[in-house]
């Protein structure tokens, strides 16, 4: 990286539009991946709720997906889907599944047995019980998983720069490392971390707002 000054703040001012569009791309890719991941994980968790013996196989499968090195997964997917957004999203979604499935199932299983017995004994149908009782009570655990999945995805989006996407990763890899331009790397990294922190706090705030009852716990006995 010789010949380049360590940091050139004026580059940021000159390239706000590029930075902004990459940030927006990063947010979009993250939201798409987490949203699809959440939907799939929900479907899998409901399947497990009905057929508990599927827990082992499903967690084993999503765990295997999680264990594949990201570079290798992107390379395989590009072979099938080309350098497309779809290739990037398929990889990102598959990384969210393990955490989300495990937390949704753990949240549902954490609903106290006596609460379920009371609900059933009072005449709630299985669907009413899920929607009105089990999911709301599981929400803190589900959101905890969502926060980890989101922060992980925000980090992984940068890797998709290798297949021509990348959001803020584009600033790190393409205009940064490839052109020996540190300012772009720092900008990408700092924004990426800031985005992760903001998303994490945002989801935490959302959870607090949705579960006022969880704060009442321990207020008095």
């Amino acid at each position, binding site marked *: 990286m010789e010949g380049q000054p360590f940091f050139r703040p004026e580059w940021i001012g000159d390239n706000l539009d590029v930075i902004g569009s990459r940030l927006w791309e990063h947010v979009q890719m993250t939201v798409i991946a987490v949203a699809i991941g959440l939907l799939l994980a929900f479907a899998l968790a409901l399947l497990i709720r009905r057929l508990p013996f599927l827990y082992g196989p499903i967690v084993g499968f999503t765990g295997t997906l999680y264990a594949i090195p990201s570079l290798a997964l992107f390379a395989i997917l590009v072979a099938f889907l080309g350098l497309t957004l779809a290739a990037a999203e398929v990889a990102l979604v598959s990384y969210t599944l393990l955490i989300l499935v495990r937390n949704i199932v753990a949240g549902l299983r954490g609903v*106290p047995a006596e609460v379920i017995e*009371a609900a059933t004994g009072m*005449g709630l149908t299985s669907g009413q019980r899920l929607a009105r*009782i089990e999911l709301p009570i599981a929400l803190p655990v589900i959101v905890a998983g969502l926060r980890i999945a989101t922060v992980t995805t925000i980090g992984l989006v940068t890797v998709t720069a290798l297949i021509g996407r990348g959001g803020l990763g584009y600033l790190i890899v393409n205009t940064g490392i490839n052109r020996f331009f540190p300012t772009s790397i720092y900008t990408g990294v700092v924004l990426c971390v800031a985005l992760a922190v903001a998303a994490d706090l945002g989801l935490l705030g959302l959870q607090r707002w949705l579960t006022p009852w*969880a704060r009442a716990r*321990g207020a008095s*006995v």
Partner: protein
Amino acid sequence: MNGPSPAGGAVVELEHVSKSYPGTDAPAVGDLSLTIPAGEICVLVGPSGCGKTTTMKMINRLIEPTGGRITIGGEDIMSMPAVELRRRIGYVIQQVGLFPHLTIGDNVATVPRLLRWKPPRIRERVEELLELVGLEPREYRDRYPAELSGGERQRVGVARALAADPPVMLMDEPFGAVDPIRRERLQNEFLRLQARVRKTIVFVTHDVDEAIKMADKIAILQRGGVLAQYDTPDVILASPATEFVERFVGADRGLKRLSLGRVRDLAPIAPVIVHAGESRADARGRLDRVEELTYALLVDDRDRPIGWIDAHDLAGEGPIPADAATPGAPTVQGETTLRDALSALLGSSVQLGVVVDERDRVTGLVSVDAIGEALRAPVRAADGSLVPIGEAAAG
């Protein structure tokens, strides 16, 4: 406050009900028949494994019977979908099972919402129920279960079960998880509540004392859901049907029976009352005429007891001095249980108790003999016949 609607209870009838699980030889419940009259508390009691909880859960089909028929108010419980049946039956469990994410008000409103009541009607009902169980609605309605004490939560559980005014309530060891002092209070509160709502209640417990206290009728179950005896607590204690029942209710069943009776149930004994300043000869004459009594009772000018005076103290002439009596006459009230009365009497030298009213005025006497006699009198069985007191039939 408006009481709950006078709908009251409905007859619950079990006819040859059984439950067997595949892969097991002995049925959990085999051929059980039981009629629970409307508005009564029927306590199912027995050792663990006797099928009492299984029996209770078959009534709201949390466990489906494998044989026989259960009817509520004449209607077969299999004639409607299980969820619809359950919305008509109150359900209270030991761990309460309040929904932690809903406020107390929303918890109580659960079944009315399932039944799609209009919101104003639900609001009114929630308020009425919280008042009924002794929780100020304005203070409790918007709080969450985690903010309540164990006893308060249990009361909310009862209010929630009563929400849609079901004719039948099932209660599975409802007071099992609270400490003995709070349990006693919750039991008393519940009995007062039941006196107003008159539901048909099926109550499961493993605690004989709780069964005796709560029950209009006790069903004692043996392993395999075999009905060992079904009768009023008094009859079961006075005359256990089998050796199993006799052992199950305990060797102290005589004392247990005493806690069912009240002092006001005994035939009153009239005391010989004397006042300070009265002539000794007069008092002595009156005491002599009453053969059963060797003591007169000295009372103050408001008829409150001071102590006992015997013939020896009354010897001689002149007025009775104010300090003539031996203090320490135990006082009991009409509501005192015979067990507590006996305990007080045995602790005093005279073995007579003074029955007083709410202003401490003497209304009569109670003796150890009278209490013993009450235990020996035959009791009236559920079918109206008189049952002599005795040991269980051999075998």
